[in-house]
């Protein structure tokens, strides 16, 4: 577990601009420490995407602060903000894949852009990760030609690649691809042990039923804001 005492992600009364974000214009507060996991139930996938955008500093604020690794998104120079986003692993639901490239390049592009790790090392790491998620290797077909289950696995490979410091996972596992849950939880646990903070959004909170690891909090993302959720064992 990391000894870092600064929060991986912190929202301090962060009030997003409604016109830009589409989120309810109310202040959001949360504090995610290294290795912590926030499980957020959200029926509306668009709302989850918008909240993840807020955490990634892509949404301007009317007031309050949004900090990632102790750095305020609003005060950060543009180039540094791009670099900081490079440390975030994301599973996205909206416009996640670019069909101009193969799935392999879609997976590798973030690491190729932000790091100087040799390409072959990245390919090896991604291939190993893909195999752990049940893919035969690094998929090279266009994302549109993969099955939905394979795309979900590839999305997880992309998010976990490069040891990110923060994971924003929008519905990474659904009922129809629940077979990858074991591999997913193994990677999630390994990432948390490295000190990575995790926010896991889900439309189907029953999927978390067995997940009670230490440092896990549960919330609901509603029109009224982020509400704590009672844990059902």
């Amino acid at each position: 577990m990391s000894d870092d005492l600064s929060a991986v992600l912190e929202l301090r009364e962060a009030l997003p601009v409604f016109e830009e974000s589409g989120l309810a214009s109310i202040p959001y507060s949360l504090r995610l420490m290294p290795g912590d996991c926030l499980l957020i139930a959200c029926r509306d996938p668009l709302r989850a995407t918008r909240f993840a955008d807020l955490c990634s500093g892509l949404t301007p604020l009317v007031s309050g602060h949004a900090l990632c690794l102790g750095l305020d998104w609003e005060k950060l120079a543009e180039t540094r903000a791009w670099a900081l986003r490079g440390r975030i692993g994301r599973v996205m639901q909206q416009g996640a894949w670019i069909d101009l490239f193969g799935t392999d390049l879609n997976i590798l592009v973030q690491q190729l852009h932000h790091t100087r790790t040799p390409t072959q090392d990245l390919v090896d790491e991604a291939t190993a990760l893909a195999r752990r998620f049940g893919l035969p290797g690094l998929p090279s077909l266009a994302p549109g030609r993969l099955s939905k289950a394979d795309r979900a696995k590839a999305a997880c490979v992309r998010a976990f690649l490069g040891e990110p410091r923060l994971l924003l996972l929008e519905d990474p596992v659904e009922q129809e691809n629940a077979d990858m849950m074991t591999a997913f939880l193994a990677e999630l646990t390994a990432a948390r042990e490295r000190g990575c903070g995790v926010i896991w959004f889900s439309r189907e909170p029953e999927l978390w039923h067995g997940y009670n690891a230490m440092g896990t909090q549960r919330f609901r993302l509603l029109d009224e804001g982020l509400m704590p959720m009672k844990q059902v064992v």
Partner: protein
Amino acid sequence: MREELPFYRRFLHRLGGLTRRQLRFTLMLVGASWGVVREASRPTSWRRTVIYEFKSTLRQSAGGGLFSTLFTAALTGFGIVAQAIYWLGIAGMADTTDSLLATVLVREIAPVLVGIILLGRSAMLSLTQLGQLTIGGELRALQAQGIDPFLTLVMPRALATMLASFTLGVVFSVIALSVGYGVCRLHAIITMPLWTFLYDIVGAMKPIDYIGIPLKLVLSGFLLSLATQLTGLDATRSDTLATLLPRGFARGIMVIMIVNVVLGVAVA
């Protein structure tokens, strides 16, 4: 509230709104041009993803456009160069052939035709891709991964198209002149060797042409690519390919013509 304003202020309000709307894209183009120059001069901008995009665009535009350029150049050589040599010879003005070909073909026609080839083959493709990425929200996903679309897509594509425009312009001029020479030689209209023919045309060019012609090719390729890419990036939810493509084509043609006319007048 607006009804309470006096007539002249309402008129000024409308005039101001119209001017801003009309100038919006031009100002965007100027800003983006400066952005490309500034980003390209930073060594840290040239990351693997940027170099990949630069190479693939260069391959697509220069390599892919080569056959179209060769074909158009051959037709131009046959239709314009050979005819010019033939009719000037008939009219007893054979001495002006070299300067006429240098002025008309190399300086005026080549940049325009190469610009149109690039517009059709590469810039419209870029417009379609960026338009679809913008409308589909994929650019937002790219941003969420810390990848600036301007740095990763716009900058390398604009620079690659600029380089392709210069390359294809030179290829076009050489092929058009060579084919024109070949046709005339076949019909025994001229008897001099090819190298002498090309040397005479080069000799007929003014020193300013050595700046003006490359500048036309480079600027039209650069601005053409930027104009079409910005049209794609500027797409809104209400846009479709049916609205984007005509807009991008009109802007592309406008850029080619303006660059060629302005430089034709300024650097003559």
